């Protein structure tokens, strides 16, 4: 009996321990799940802009496309990426390997891919369009793929690259955006509740000058170089004949290639990308507007994507399948194909009369009437007084 009791007791103990472990696991699981959702955003967007035209700026297109590749690999769908490329490098006639853009020497990594979707390209990449995309003030007929449809729960990654100077970034070599304009655009976005948190990365000369004027909350900014410094290019390729990438983005891509959707790297790791020994310039960052500690912000908060999942306990009843009333009405009209070049019809086609003109007989009659009335009134004998 005692043995039996003891056995049951041990059973109980075992059950209790298992229960305890299970509860611990559950708590742990909930914690991790809580961490997962703690960043407070429900969707991710990316605006990736290359502002340089002409073949020798190949590297800027490659920069943008490498970031595009990374965010797409980490889960942001094409519908949430607004990609702006100011020139076509992939199908440029100078490109020895058409439909490719390489980021590494010896053509190792094709960042253009086989399913790229460029939303704004060529002449469409202007300061006006960029600011309109950010602030959402686009014409009503703009398609969805060209809009930034973010909300106050969106984390937005904005990446810019091009030629710049102290306080400005050139677009297409013909116009420029200043750091004040950019800061005001972000403020407008904040006031319109278009973002939750915003990560701004710029790879250009004197890049740090572009984020100096930011004043809206929840913005973290990175730049490839300090004021007074140039950003330098990397990876010259003899076959393509130009530099393939800029140093900062090259090392950024190298860093991002190791990130996977579950990785725990945080923003402090991102700040360490491309030290001065590699970049030659000094990358800068600004976190004073950002409310959270950069150490707690995962890379995937901006480069990855979360999908909003809502679990419902209620059963949903699907409606009956839509019936297709097969319209059996027989049309009496017989259609036919038309002649593609009906010569006789074209020759006898009357030119369109644009404006109505009174018929000639009417005008003739009117003049006759006027003359008649005149002669009736004055008669022939008075004619000498008139002339």
């Amino acid at each position, binding site marked *: 009996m005692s043995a039996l009791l003891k056995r049951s007791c041990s059973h109980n103990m075992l059950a209790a321990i298992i229960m305890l472990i299970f509860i611990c696991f559950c708590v742990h699981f909930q914690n991790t799940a809580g961490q997962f959702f703690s960043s407070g955003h429900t969707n991710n967007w990316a605006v990736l802009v290359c502002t340089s*035209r*002409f073949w020798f700026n190949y590297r800027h297109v490659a920069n943008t496309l490498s970031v595009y590749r990374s965010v797409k690999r980490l889960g942001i769908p094409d519908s949430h990426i607004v990609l702006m490329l100011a020139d*076509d490098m*992939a*199908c440029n006639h100078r490109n020895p*390997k*058409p*439909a*490719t853009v390489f980021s590494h020497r010896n053509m190792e990594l094709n960042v*253009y*891919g*086989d*399913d*790229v*979707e*460029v*939303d704004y*390209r*060529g*002449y*469409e990449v202007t300061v006006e369009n960029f600011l309109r995309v950010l602030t959402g003030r686009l*014409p009503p*007929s*703009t*398609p*969805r*793929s*060209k809009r930034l449809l973010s909300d106050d729960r969106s984390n937005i990654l904005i990446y810019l690259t091009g030629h710049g100077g102290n306080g400005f970034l050139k677009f*297409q*070599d*013909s116009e420029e955006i200043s750091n004040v304009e950019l800061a005001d655009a972000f403020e407008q976005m904040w006031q319109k509740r278009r973002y939750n948190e915003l990560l701004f990365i710029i790879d250009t000369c004197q890049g740090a000058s572009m984020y100096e004027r930011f004043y809206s909350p929840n913005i973290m900014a990175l730049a490839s170089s300090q004021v007074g410094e140039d950003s330098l290019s990397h990876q010259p390729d003899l076959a393509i004949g130009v530099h393939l990438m800029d140093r900062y983005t090259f090392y950024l891509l190298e860093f991002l290639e190791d990130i996977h959707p579950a990785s725990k790297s945080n923003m402090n790791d991102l700040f360490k990308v491309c030290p001065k020994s590699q970049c030659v310039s000094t990358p800068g960052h600004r976190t004073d507007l950002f409310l959270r500690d950069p150490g707690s912000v995962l890379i995937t908060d901006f480069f990855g994507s979360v999908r909003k999942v809502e679990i419902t306990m209620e059963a949903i009843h699907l409606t009956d*399948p*839509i*019936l*297709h*009333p*097969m*319209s059996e009405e*027989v*049309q*009496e*009209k*017989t*259609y*036919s*194909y*038309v*002649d*593609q*070049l*009906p*010569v006789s019809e*074209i*020759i006898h*086609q009357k*030119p369109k009369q644009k404006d109505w003109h009174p018929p000639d007989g009417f005008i003739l009659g009117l003049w006759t009437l006027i003359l008649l009335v005149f002669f009736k009134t004055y008669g022939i004998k008075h004619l000498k007084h008139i002339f």
Partner: protein
Amino acid sequence: MAAYVNRCSNLLVFIFILSVFLFVDSQQTTPVNEQHTNTADNPQPAAESATQTAEEGRWEATEVDEAALGDSAADKLGVRASDTFVLTPTPQPKDDFQEELVIRPLHSGDIYASFQFRTLWETDFMRENKVSHYRLFPKSLGQVISKFSVRELHISFTQGYWRTMQWGQPFLPSPPGAELWVWFQDSVTDVDAAWKELTNVLSGIFCASLNFIDSTNTVQPSASFKPLGIVNETDHRFLRYATLPREIVCTENLTPWKKLLPCGSKAGLAVLLKSEKLFHSSFFSQTVHIRPVCQDRECKTTSWELRQTLNVVFDLHTSGQGKREWSLFKMFSRTLTEACPLASSSKIYIDVTDNPQEEYFELSPATPLLSQAVVLGDRRTFSVYDLTQQVTFGTVRSLNLLIRWKSTEGDMLRPLLHAERYVAGYGLQTGEIHTVMYNNHPFRSFPVLLLDSVPWYLRLYIHTLTVTSKGKDNTPSYIHYQPSKDRMRPHLLEMLVQLPPHSVTEVTVQFERALLKWTEYTPDPNHGFYVGSSVISALVPSSVAMDTNITQEQPLFSSFFPCKEESSYFVRVYTEPLLVNLPTPDFSMPYNVICLTCTVVAVGYGSLYNLLTRSFQIEEPNPRLAKKIANFIRRIRGVPLLS
């Protein structure tokens, strides 16, 4: 549940038996068809009948073969329809998908590959209740059709220029850049607004800059473009036409195009569409054509046809490494393993007309199936590979067609019509546009309709318009000219000209280049400004009788332009786009002017202002301390002071 499974398995067994029966049936009918050919149906000229006698066993007549295939396809479709009927109680509107690839070896050693995909759907987008269930037809385009009340939509994206003289006529012509023309339904009240919105939507669908289409590059041709689908009446107010000659065509345009296919790029012929290879070519063109077509011979009901074509010319020297040898793998870096499972027919045609006895090139694997079709006024012979038959793939389960040239000589049939265009003149003020049209037919003249749409910043002097053939004036029988309005609309010139036999007809018109406003210049104005291709529509005399019955089962590539008469065929030829330099200001000039003005103001006006406002005084120099003290002492002493 068990009963259901049972029934399903029964059905499967039934389909299996049926397919086996069909297969055996087709195997058996083939020789019968052959005999038919040899006895009754013998339209071949002497050379070809020689071939026939030489290779008796492999000839097969087109019509009979096509009809048989059509029957079997219909059978399968019937099976599928009944299948779906069992599973879902409501009958679905019938739709059908066909794919084919035509390969034509060109004598220059280049190779022309043309993909044709056709989705037919027996539905009506214009009904009151919305079409909501899509199967094969892409939903994005279906919604566009019903929202904007589009009757016909033709869009093409092309990179490179089709060299008619070297390559002959393409199956479907397209101008360099992007071209869009749309017929709206006559229920549309504001056509311009619908057109503007439609271009925006299409630019989103195809990742293209079609939103640059506005009133300055849109025209309403009065005669050049007729509906290609079925209609009751045509009113040209509902037509809009625009080209963007500078449009870049690259992978981002191909990606959404591939997504419109029912199988995507996952199966069927579309697996060959790899952008690295397709864009490494001399010519690339992708098009989408939507139009209503007849359902049957009576043509009382319409169905919607979506035709997607992709044409590519591979260059011998850039991609073939100079060896005159082509294979599917070499062209597309892929081989075929299956047909698209949703396709009712999936075929590869290889043009072997110039190669009846394999003296120019040889094909491997060889195919016993031959087919004939009348294409662009010429009867062509094709070797056919049917991808729905497992036999085609052989034992290795993949098809890699190989074309190996044996000799390099051989000349091509010269195209009867081709055209070119260039800008003459010097300087940046005036110029002259020359359009040259060649009629290479030895004894027949034929009419052509020329359409020119010139941007407003080239001011055409229409009084200088001359049309000459063989050194004499050639008066056009129809001229439609719409002058441009600055920043509003382009010039539109349409002319119907009769081209005399074996002649060169030249159309010249002078123009003046306008000065643009500063902000109207593109970011790279020194590149020049493009003028879109001229469109030449012609009725070219045909050497063989054309097939006027469009509803008959034909290969897709030969059945696009509806043909009304047997003696001639309709063809459209595009000229080169023009690149014109406009007088371009020095864009750094305003900056220079500002700098210079500021300097002048600062130096000139500043000094003048200084002169006028300053009061001048003689300043007493301050004497030294020693001198001061000395003078103080001298003043006390009463001695004259030191100066």
